[in-house]
């Protein structure tokens, strides 16, 4: 599943870059209950409890940032496992300075494996699309609330 979008916020590119480079801030944009258990250099781990209505499970995840270079897109790869299944997500935010603030072009590639993919895809696909969009919408709101440059 792939989703992408674009939004503009008043926050400066450095602020936006710092936001997306921080797994806690990024994952706090999730509506679902979650924890971030460790953050070490470019790696982070935690849990998220998610699903569709009563089809829910707790996924343990490990995440890793590609090298974060200001001015370059920020990209995180997250591997999660739960419900006997796997979820692999690549989240990317491409930042361009704008006047005012920053234009964020985002993309999410999400791959499901295991029973959730083979049995549940018919039922979870639209939810994942919505959750992805909601995550970046929340990110936009938070950044919008950040102090302007």
């Amino acid at each position: 599943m792939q989703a992408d979008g674009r939004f503009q916020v008043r926050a400066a590119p450095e602020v936006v870059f710092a936001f997306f480079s921080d797994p806690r801030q990024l994952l706090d944009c999730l509506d679902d209950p979650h924890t971030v258990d460790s953050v070490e250099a470019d790696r982070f781990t935690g849990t998220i409890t998610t699903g569709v209505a009563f089809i829910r499970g707790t996924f343990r995840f490990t995440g890793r940032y590609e090298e974060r270079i200001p001015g370059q897109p920020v990209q995180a790869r997250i591997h999660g496992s739960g419900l006997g299944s796997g979820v692999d997500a690549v989240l990317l935010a491409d930042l361009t300075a704008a006047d005012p603030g920053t234009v964020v072009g985002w993309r999410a590639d999400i791959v499901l494996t295991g029973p959730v993919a083979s049995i549940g895809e018919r039922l979870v696909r639209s939810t994942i699309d919505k959750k992805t969009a909601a995550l970046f919408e929340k990110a936009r709101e938070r950044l919008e609330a950040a102090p302007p440059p």
Partner: protein
Amino acid sequence: MTTTIHGGIGQSLARKEDARFIRGKGNYVDDIQLPGMLFLDFTRSPYAHAKITAIHPEKALKIPGVLAVITGKDLDAAKLAWMPTLMSDTQMVLPIDTVKFQGQEVVGIVADSRYSAADGAAAVEIDYEPLPVVTDPVKALLPDAPLVRPDKTKKSNHIWHWETGDKAGTDAALAKSDVVVHQDLYLPRLNVSSMETCGCVAQFDTMGRLTVWMTTQAPHAIRTVFALVAGLPEQNIRIISPDLGGGFGGKVPVYPGYVVAVVAALKTGHAVKWVEDRMDNLMSSSFARDYHISADIGATKDGKLTGLRVKTVADHGYADAAANPSKFPAGLFHIITGSYPFDKAFVEVDGVYTNKPPGGIAYRCSFRVTEAAFTIERLVDGIAHKLGMDPAEFRLKNFIPPESFPYKSALGWTYDSGNYAGALNLAMKMIDYPALRKEQVEKRKRGELMGIGISSFTEIVGAGPSAQFDILGIKMFEGCEIRIHPTGKVMARFGTKSQGQGHETTYSQILAEELGIPAENIAIEEGDTDTAPYGLGTYASRSTPTAGAAAVIAARKIREKAQKIAAHLLEVSPDDLEWKDYKFQVKGVPEKSKTMADVAFAAYTNPAPGTEAGLEAVDYYDPPNMTYPFGSYVCVVDIDKGTGQVNIRRFVAVDDCGTIINPMIVEGQIHGGLNMGLAPALYEQITYDENGNMRGNSFLDYLVPTAVESPHWETGKTTTPSPHHPIGAKGVGESPTVGAPAAIVNAVVDALSPLGVTNIDIPIYPWKVWQILHDKGQN
């Protein structure tokens, strides 16, 4: 008036085994309950290809009732992490560091109940690092493809190349042909989906002797493999194959679950049961087919076949675990010249690794014969259409004529017997072929879609002659041991193993006929390696051609000895006796006779001087040739233009399996085989997405036909006995599965041929037909 004996050959004797099955008294593996028995379940990989970075069993071990977990590293310490396949490849029992397909067993959980084991399996946490996946065998052969088996010396996904026939001669013959038809065909992955999944109960007794009750079609071969893999003395291993809820080829291989259950039984000192659930079975038990075929067939303009060239890519998943005879990595695929006398033919197959479960077993067919029959019957139809000839007429013109048998095919097989025109003519008569063609003309005028499809297939079963056929070096003979007790009752044991074919009934019928003892007085036992003579097992329609022959020969050995005893009782010379009307009679004096029961009693009470007491014989039968059953099927379909749905209106199947032992059982086998020919044509397949996710890993999406999808099958028969089998029998269980798919597809293509359609890949789902109709503006 000819004398008959109760349950002799040719009678529709009611099945002996039914008495227990209709009372719910069958004894299948999961029915076995032993004191203190533990349960094994597995945590499986959600990834098709990934590095295992950590395994966390702690939460599982805290679950009440969970007693132990077993990992690949544990097995590695005992050198049991890998095991050989029947094709002399290697496959994992449990992975040490890398998983190779989705659904692969990763951690075994041993618990005191199946509920706790399942909880434990769900609680084991495993960290993976996903690796690139390849699921398409053609892409797997590209230079930059992810390497599936870096443990191999050959750094490529190519496993083997196999070819046979005359390449240059075939190329030349096709180049000279007036018409050549090229066709790409794909036979998708299938799962045999026997109603019972695979499983076992493993138990070590206090003396260290291992008994495994196991869902296996080949108990003796499994015992030998276990001895070789585990290093256990073979006399200390007892494999018991109890009642099997279907096999169809899926219960030939050795699965990791069997091995882990044995290890768990050894480690815990308790009996351990492992039974797959259906998802486990669909995701990890051996698949069938997955052949990508590219073929050319040539003919002269007046419709004479000239040459056949076939190139194939065989997807074996991450290990070649095919259940083929050792010398034939592509099975008997080179029966592909079918019922036709090609001068020149050439076949090549390349085996390839991908991130899918291992295998390459049969799906109710002799090794890769469906793939062959489907290809030739599709191609023959294609070239008939191209020449504008009626496909029936085209076949009748080309068939190997009855007088040419034994017939040596262009690819080296010597067909024992056949009368292909006889079968096709009967099928056409039963279905009134000319009337159907007339109806079709009328319907086409009205824009309605109706199709008639024919398949005139040749099977090759009864593996096999020891010169060519072995599995892991063990020749493919079959054993029968007969003991006649003093009261004239018989116990006969076999190395084969029925999975529903009714061996208890048919074997006793063969013996009734040969021994002159009513079938009701004959007990048949199979599946216990402690008691049965060695044999390679039941698959590839080989039981009647091999074990059935062993029964005849062993019975005749008994008759030879019995004749001496009868002569002693009648006070004549053995040469003065003849075996007539199921008795030893003094030639010309029918009233002076002894029955086999008389002789049996004497064998224990009054043996002839110079003969040993008792009345027993063993035979290990090495068939001189394969047998070649055949048949002609005609299928009529109507297509709903609004939905693309294919409706099979009629299906006539004429089979010829030589001498028939029990007509009722043969007909039942044909019905079932036809359904398993229908299934891949219209319903079943296993596919994977590019991430290696199996699509369709439950019966929600793996579409086993119900009674509503299945047509009302019509059957007919001709009888052309095998000249080399002692009673002329050939084997039949798989013929319909081999023959039916092409008849159905040919019918659908025939219906759509006015639109220029020459092929549709199976399974023919409504959307595929709808798409064609839509593209042609027909709906």
